[in-house]
């Protein structure tokens, strides 16, 4: 690492005086590239260091290609190739000349391998190359990558950079780096304590580790005391954010439960069908997402927008089919619907196994759902969880609107409360039944789209959620959408707050026992349906 920093220094020097003889570097650069194709993993890093030192304009692109794992060479003549996967087909390009060539067999090319150490080196080298990049994020990341390894020279450089810097994030990163430097190696105790004071506002684990170190090993007791005080301050915040984190985890788990259960709240809750095939509706939704992504390979980022309506339609149609062919003959015999739908769930699982193979299918995450929203160094909310949380709420509200404000919703409620009366009023109960079941299944399909972003897309997907779904609906009170919402989030949060105390398995067991006892206390769930219809 030290060596790398030396290089970094050199490189800064190179940057400021770009007048080195071009021919020299070019030739050695080519030699180094040749050496790269011959080196084994342990010998690669020194070569890369030399390549970085050449300051050749292609270095950044070379490192980037290497980091992405796209750099290969032709076995015959050791010419570097970049092989990039574009929409499922490999495109071969000669790296230096940039000319596209015909694809080669896998026995004719060999990959330039990188391991984690090299990857670390490459990303920090790229960081260094980007310290003066025009992107503030890259600059900030570059500074942060230097936190624990600052020496006097680089610290001076950073101080220099700070003067020219205007972006606040980058400034804050530089301040942190400088504060850590002075806390560690400032000349006076006062300067050290001032720096520690600055650090006490920071939540970066590196700063915390440094303070730990100072608390234990600093020579001066005043410094040790300052470190203890700073740590206490930081720990208080960390604990607080820990709770916030847990709350978010709980909400997120709750949103998953909600998405899994909300379709069931319609088919089971409103129609009274004990729908054991509900899980398979989730599964169909997830598989629809997979198929949609297959059909539009270049547009992964938009695929979910297509998948949501598609999943709704596919699962909904399956639901209507099931209702028309089986469930309508079982009205008023709720426990028998359990058996029939159990059979259907077996059939659907095996169908998927036959059509798509028993293996899990790969569903890609769109870019806007990967990564996380970093609120501070100890609290970051992952985008996919955040998206799913919001999505669950939107689906819930939409369903609530359908049930409360539309004619369909009115009919559904009418039929569920008094079928004969509704029939007498001229409501086509058959159609309403089919549509309701279709709606419930369709919503489950949408839930499946969300689940495809979190878990396996395979034939067993449905079974993993069916029990949880029933628990949520029953806990919330059958026939009550709001109950389902409250139940999902309650169980999610309870689970997540229990988990650190009891461990994962015990937490699930405790939640189940809690549900069992709760049902004793309130045999009709959180929000029992009133009136004779509930009997």
């Amino acid at each position: 690492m030290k060596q790398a920093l030396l290089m970094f220094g050199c490189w800064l020097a190179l940057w400021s005086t770009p007048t080195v003889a071009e021919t020299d570097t070019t030739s050695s650069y080519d030699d180094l590239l040749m050496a790269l194709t011959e080196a084994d993993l342990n010998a690669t890093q020194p070569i890369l260091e030399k390549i970085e030192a050449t300051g050749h304009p292609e270095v950044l692109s070379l490192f980037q290609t290497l980091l992405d794992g796209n750099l290969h060479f032709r076995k015959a003549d050791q010419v570097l190739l970049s092989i990039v996967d574009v929409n499922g087909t490999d495109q071969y390009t000669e790296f230096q000349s940039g000319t596209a060539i015909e694809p080669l067999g896998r026995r004719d090319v060999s990959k330039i391998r990188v391991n984690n150490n090299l990857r670390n080196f490459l990303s920090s080298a790229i960081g260094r190359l980007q310290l003066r990049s025009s992107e503030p994020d890259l600059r900030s990341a570059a500074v942060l990558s230097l936190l624990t390894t600052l020496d006097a020279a680089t610290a001076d450089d950073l101080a220099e950079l700070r003067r020219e810097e205007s972006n606040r994030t980058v400034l804050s990163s530089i301040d942190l780096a400088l504060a850590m430097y002075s806390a560690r190696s400032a000349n006076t105790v006062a300067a050290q304590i001032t720096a520690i004071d600055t650090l006490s506002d920071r939540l970066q684990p590196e700063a915390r580790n440094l303070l730990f170190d100072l608390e234990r090993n600093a020579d001066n007791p005043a410094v040790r005391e300052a470190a203890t005080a700073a740590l206490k301050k930081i720990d208080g915040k960390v604990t607080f954010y820990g709770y916030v984190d847990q709350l978010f985890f709980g909400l997120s788990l709750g949103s998953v439960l909600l998405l899994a259960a909300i379709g069931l709240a319609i088919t089971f809750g409103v129609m009274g069908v004990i729908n054991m095939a509900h899980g398979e509706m989730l599964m169909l939704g997830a598989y629809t997402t997979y198929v949609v992504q297959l059909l539009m390979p270049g547009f992964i980022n938009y695929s979910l927008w297509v998948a949501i309506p598609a999943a709704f339609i596919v699962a909904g149609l399956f639901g209507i089919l099931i209702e028309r062919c089986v469930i309508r003959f079982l009205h008023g015999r709720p426990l028998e619907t359990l058996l029939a739908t159990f059979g259907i769930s077996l059939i659907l699982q095996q169908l998927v196994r036959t059509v798509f193979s028993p293996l899990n299918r790969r569903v890609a995450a769109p870019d806007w759902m990967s990564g996380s929203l970093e609120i501070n160094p100890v609290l970051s909310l992952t985008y996919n969880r955040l998206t799913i949380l919001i999505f669950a709420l939107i689906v819930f509200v939409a369903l609530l609107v359908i049930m409360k404000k539309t004619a369909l919703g009115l009919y559904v409620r009418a039929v569920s409360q008094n079928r004969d009366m509704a029939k007498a009023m001229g409501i086509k109960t058959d159609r309403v039944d089919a549509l309701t079941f279709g709606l419930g299944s369709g919503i489950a399909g949408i839930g499946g789209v969300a689940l495809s972003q979190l878990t396996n897309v395979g034939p067993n997907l449905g079974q993993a959620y069916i029990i949880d779904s029933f628990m949520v609906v029953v806990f919330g009170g059958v026939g009550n959408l709001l109950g389902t919402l409250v139940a999902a989030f309650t169980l999610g949060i309870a689970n997540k707050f229990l988990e650190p105390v009891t461990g994962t398995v015990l937490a699930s067991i405790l939640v189940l026992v809690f549900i069992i006892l709760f049902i004793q206390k309130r045999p009709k769930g959180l929000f029992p349906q009133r009136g004779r219809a509930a009997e």
Partner: protein
Amino acid sequence: MSLLTTFMSRRNSLGSPVLPFVTILMTLTVLAAIGNLWIPADSALHVSTYTITLLGKYLSFAMLALAVDIVWGYCGILSLGHGAFFALGGYAMGMYLMRQIGSRGVYGDPILPDFMVFLDWDVLPWYWLGMDQFWFAMLMVLLVPGLLAFVFGWLAFHSRVTGVYLSIITQALTYALMLAFFRNEMGFGGNNGLTDFKDLLGFSLQADTTRVALLLCTAGLLAAIFMFSHWVLKSRFGKVIEAIRDGEPRVRFLGYRTDRYKVALFVYSAMIAGIAGALYVPQVGIINPGEFAPLNSIEIVVWVAVGGRGTLYGAVIGALLVNYAKTRFTALMPDGWLFMLGALFVLVTLFLPKGLAGVYGQLITSWKRGRNRDEPPQRNQEATS
């Protein structure tokens, strides 16, 4: 028996299914036993040990189906958690069998089962004490499921939890137990469960004679439980139970404390399930938390539905048939048997709401109607929540 027959002759115009059932069951098993032990292997009449173990398994399942039918078919309590009682009975038997291994385990520890040596346990947990005594283990086979059923039933029926709510919390019960038994800290062998059994009461479990004895024992107990259950359900107690199924509030107004009746029946059923589990384990050679899986419990209900709930022989036939179909299908078409099984469930619910026993009952009724025009048709009764 005489008591039963007098009972029948007076009350049940259709005739009692008890005698034919017991006769057929015992004849078949005895024939199978003879076929296995005394007829030479090259004879066409020889019954292979494979068939014997298979029959033993089917009959244990039949007993389990009987247990579910007693609560569901007769009392309308749809338990989706009967697998839990079955598995608890099985674990009690498994613990006894584990202790019988003694120092013949792979680590040769005279007291601790292999998996405990494996996990560095020093002493036997308290709940394993006494399990080396056969009588004690058998007591536990009855008591553990019975006690769980009592506590659970007392809570649930006392608070008048009914219908789907009850079904779902029974499911929660077995699911929670499954998670618990999967934990290695529980001291029941975790996911691997209990296996590698050697002998039962000193008889090697791998000997054909032991297997046949187990089969006969299972058949005998099934017959005994069948007869006893028949007697119970035809007594006034049974009438109260059926009345609870059809109108629990009304029964309360007649002065019966229905919750106690339901608890008693539930405990009885759980104990039968426990016995079934205890018979199942030595015959298949393993007990593992997978038996607690909620899907297993649903499957039991399906057997009963296929056979016909509300008739004891229907439950038995359903269990035998579905399991036989599973055995055949998994071998005949390994890739497609789930289609067949799924379709079977759907078709039975749609077209045979009273199961196969219902078809039989209808045949009998129409035959009788042909002879006696006065007899009104048997109504299809809804026995659900």
